[in-house]
């Protein structure tokens, strides 16, 4: 059953990534250079809606709080994010969109994926050395959410804040930002992606 859900949700996710232009390095490059923000708007809106649904769902008991899976915060998260950011801008792909682009017949994505497999292998090999630097030690309490979410096993960075309310407010802010952000200068949108 879980595999069936993975199949359906995965296929939907891939189709959405294709339709919003996330697998197109030109669309991504223009977004990161802040020239055409259509994709950025779509991503921010999606995160905002997910926030809203998650926490509204939890408050009403529809969404199981136990499904939450919060990753540990450590200095390497920031450094790794910076590295990823550089490679992301250079190649126009992140791990997921690179694989999707490969499946969409983009030949440069093949080289991205090959480089990625080698990069992941390099990390496997250097893991002990990285670990010994202390970069992987938890900071800010490790696996924490911004506020304390009622019923979850994760603590809040700010225990006094109600985590579910924070989630909803943040969701509304993300949605508002998605609508306020401009698409970009007219004429910059050379590549048009079919409307959703």
């Amino acid at each position, binding site marked *: 059953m879980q595999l069936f859900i993975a199949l359906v*949700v*995965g296929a939907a996710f891939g189709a959405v990534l294709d339709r919003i232009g996330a697998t197109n390095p030109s669309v991504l490059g223009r977004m990161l250079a*802040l020239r055409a923000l259509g994709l950025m708007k779509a991503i921010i809106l999606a995160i905002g809606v997910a926030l809203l649904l998650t926490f509204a769902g939890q408050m009403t008991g529809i969404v199981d709080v136990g499904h939450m899976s919060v990753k540990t915060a450590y200095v390497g998260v920031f*450094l*790794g994010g910076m590295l990823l950011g550089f*490679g992301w801008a250079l190649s126009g792909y992140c791990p997921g969109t690179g694989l999707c682009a490969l499946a969409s017949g983009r030949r440069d994505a093949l080289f991205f994926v090959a480089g990625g497999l080698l990069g992941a292998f390099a*990390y496997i090999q250097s893991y002990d050395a990285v670990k010994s630097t202390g970069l992987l030690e938890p900071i800010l309490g490790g696996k924490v959410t911004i506020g304390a979410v009622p019923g979850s096993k994760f603590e809040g960075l700010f225990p006094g804040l109600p985590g579910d309310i924070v989630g909803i407010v943040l969701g509304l802010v993300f949605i508002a930002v998605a609508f306020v952000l401009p698409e970009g200068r007219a004429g910059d949108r050379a590549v048009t992606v079919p409307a959703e």
Partner: protein
Amino acid sequence: MLGLVFFAAMLLVKPIGMSTEFVVFDGVIWDMINPDIVVEGPDGPTSSNAYLNGVAKSVANPLNYGVVFVLATMLGAGVSAALRGAYGGGGVVPSLWAANFGASAAKRFAGAFLGGFIVLYGARLAGGCTSGHMMSGMSQTSVSGFIFAAGAFLVAIPTAMILFKQEG
């Protein structure tokens, strides 16, 4: 918007992760070359490599949730691209790259390869990528997700501004 459906479904089941599967795939290949790297232990598959040990179960039995999810994602993207007549992406070199670095396929392939290496090394160091940290993480108000996004955009935006000055 389709994004809504997807995110609702995702959060009902399990947050997603893409970059872990690169490690799993590496492990599968490594295990083919050297079958001693992942072995059957008393409590299931284990690996002599400390990092690979964390995904030893997936390496020994790759047909699991994470791998199926990734394969399905690729299938969905491929079919969607084909349906709108965009299979192949309209050329080997993306237009924005071509406008800034020329039409050389070799140059683009080198850039994509180098980018892929850095992206996956960074993603593993960070413990997740755009999907796991940014999308799944931030939508749970996870502090690590926001730290990751800050680091990624702090570098990605100036890099893209410098690299892609010409409009494609």
